[in-house]
C-alpha cells in the first residue's frame, strides 16, 4: 500500500471523528488536529479498524503527537501493515 493511499484513509478517519479541515496539510502535526484524550481514543480505534491492525501496548506509550500525518502514515502504519509487528514500528520511531 502506498503512503498516499494511507494518508488519504487517515484523512477520511479524521472526517469520521469530526475533524473537518478544508484541505489537510500533510505537515500538520497530530497534536494540532487531535484535540483531547477522547479524540485520541476515537482516532486510534478508527485506525485499528481501518487498517485491521492491532497496536501493541508499547506503541501507546510513545508520544506520536509531534508526528505529521505523513510521518504517521510512513513510520507507523506502513511498517505494521508490511510486517505486522511492533518491532517494525519501533525501528522507525522518530529519534
Amino acid at each position, binding site marked *: 500500500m502506498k503512503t498516499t493511499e494511507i494518508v488519504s484513509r487517515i484523512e477520511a478517519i479524521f472526517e469520521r471523528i469530526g475533524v473537518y479541515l478544508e484541505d489537510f496539510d500533510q505537515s500538520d502535526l497530530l497534536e494540532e488536529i*487531535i484535540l483531547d*484524550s*477522547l479524540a*485520541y*481514543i*476515537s*482516532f*486510534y*480505534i478508527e485506525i485499528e479498524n481501518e487498517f485491521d491492525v492491532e497496536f501493541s*501496548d508499547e506503541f*501507546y*506509550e*510513545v*508520544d*506520536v*503527537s509531534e508526528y505529521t500525518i505523513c510521518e504517521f502514515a510512513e513510520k507507523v502504519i506502513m511498517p505494521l501493515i508490511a510486517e505486522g509487528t511492533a518491532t517494525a514500528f519501533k525501528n522507525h520511531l522518530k529519534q
Partner: protein
Amino acid sequence: MQNCLHYDLILLDSGYAFNNKNGSAVDIFIREADDWRIAEKADDAVGHGTAVMSIIVNGHNCGKYAVFKAFTSTTQSNVDNVLSALRFINEKVSCKYIQMSFGVRGFNRELETICRELYEKGIILIAALDNCGAMSYPASHDFVVGVSGDPFLKTKNDFAVSDSGVVDIYAKSARQIVGKNANGYVVEQGNSFAASYVSLALLESGKSFATKESAMRFFSPGYSTFSPQEKSMLLGTKAALFPLNKEMYSLVNYSEFLAIQLIAIYDIKYSSNLRRTLLSFDGRNEYVVKNIEKCDWVAFDTLILGHMRELSQLLGRDIKRELLEKCISNRKNAYCFDGNLYGEFSEKFRKEGLILECADEYASLYAEGRLYQFKTPILCVLGTNKKQGKFTLQMQIRSVLQQNNVRVGVLGTEPNALLLGCDEVLPLGYDSALAGHFGSKITEAANYAMHKIDVLERDIIITGGQSGFLPHITFNSGHINASQIPFLYGIMPDGIILSFSEGDSSEYLRKSIRAIEGLISTKVFLLALYAFHTEKDYVIDVSKRLLTDKEIASQRKRIKKDLGLEIVVSGDIRDNDLLFKKIIEFYCEPTETEQ
C-alpha cells in the same frame, strides 16, 4: 443536697396556672440564680405552659408532674434558663419524661450535651418542632422524640410515625380547646400541643421505656431508628484511579488534601496519556500514567472509578462493568463518581465482603421540607460560566485559610470531594443523581449536607456552585442552570466570591451580583478572575490562552471602576495575601484599634 424528687413528667415551659387540677398536683419550679425551687403560688403570665400541660393533666390525672418556668415569652426562648433547668433536673430530680414544647433554630452544643446526658440516664425526651417549618432543637437531635402536628390527625389517639429522621411522630395539632380562664375558652393550635398528645399516650400506656426506639415502637412496632449515611470507609486506603479526566486531575494537583493514599493512575491505552508524568501543585508527588490493561491489582486496595459513559461509548464496550467485575475477582473495593451500575453491583460487593461506594450515596434526600439554620459563617464560590477554575479557587481559599490557622469546613460539590478531605460531598454536576432533581430536593440535600458540617463548629465553611449562575444565553433550557438557585437556598451563604472571565461585561457582572444578592441575604464581596482568554460562544470552547499581566491589570482596573470591587486571580498564589485579607475583612468584626 436536696432530696431527689421524682416526677412522671417534667415540662419546661412558661409556667402553670394551677397548683392542683383534676386531682393532679403540679409542682412549679422557678429559678433563683443557678438554683431552682418550688414556687408557693401557681404562675403562668403567658398561658402557653398551662395550655400544654392541660392536655396531659386532663388526660392522665393520676400522675405526678412538674413545670419548670423556663421562659416568659412565646416568641423567644431563654436558652440560659433552659440549660439551667435541665442541669438542675440532671442533678437533683428524677423523671420518666421531659417535654419541651419549644425550640431554638441554631445548633447549640450545650443543649445537646445536657439533653444527651439526661437521655443516657433513661429519660425519654419529647420536643416539639418549629411551627414555622424549620429544623429546631432539641427536637432535631436523633435521641429526642421530635413531634410535629398534622391537620389530618383529628383525635388524641391519632398518630403517624415517620422514619425519615426529621420528624419522628405526627400528632393532633389543629385548633382545640385546651382550657378555660376568666376570658372564656382557651383555643390553641400548633406543635406544642401535638407533643403533649405524644407524652399523654406514653403516660397512659403505663409502660417504661429505656430508649427512644422502644418508646417509638409503642406507636409503631416496626419503627427503626433513622441511620444517617456513614462516612466513607475507603478514606485512608491505598487507591488507584481510572480514567485520567478532569476530576482525577484534581486528585493529583491537590495531593496535599488527599484523604486516600494515591498509589497509581491508570488510563485507557488509546488516550495518549500513557507514560505521562503528572506532578502535584506542591511538587511533592509525582505519578506516571499507566495502562489499565496492565493494572497491578496487588498494589492498592481501592479502585476509584471516574465518569466513563463517554469512554464506554467510544470503546464500544462497558468498561466500567468490566472493571467492577475485576475488582470483585481481585478482591478490591471501589469508589464510583456516579451511580451508573452502582445498584447492580453494591450487593455483589457486599456479598464478597468488599466495599462499593458512590458519591451520590452521600446526597441524602428527605421530603419533609424542614431546613436547618446555620451558625457557622459560610462562603460560597459561584461563577459566570463552566470551566472557570472555581474548584481551584476553593482549594486555594482552603489552603490560605488553613495556613493562617483558620479551621475550615468544606462542602464539595464535585464527586471527588471526600477523597480530597472535604467534610461532606454533594455531587451536583455531570451525571450526578441530584442533577435529575430540581427545586426542593436540591435545597434539602444541600441544607442537610451543610448542617453536618455546621455542627462541627469550624470557623468557616466553604463551598462552591456548579457552572454559571446567571445564563448568558437562553436558547436552550440546558443554558439555564436551574439547580443553582435551590442550592443557594439550601446553603444560605453569608458571602460570595464570584468567579468571572475577562469576556464578561461589567453590565452582565452587575446583573449577576444583583440577582444573587436579590435572592438571599448575602453579599458578593470579591471577584475572582479566571485568567484565560477563551474564544467561545458560551457553549463551545474553541481555544484559550493565558492572560498577560497587562490584561490582568486592565481587568482589575475595570472591575474596581465599574463595580467598586477588587479581584483576585484564581489559582495565583501571588494573590493569596489579598484573598485572605478580603475574607477576613468581610467575615470578622473589626478590632477596637481598627474601629
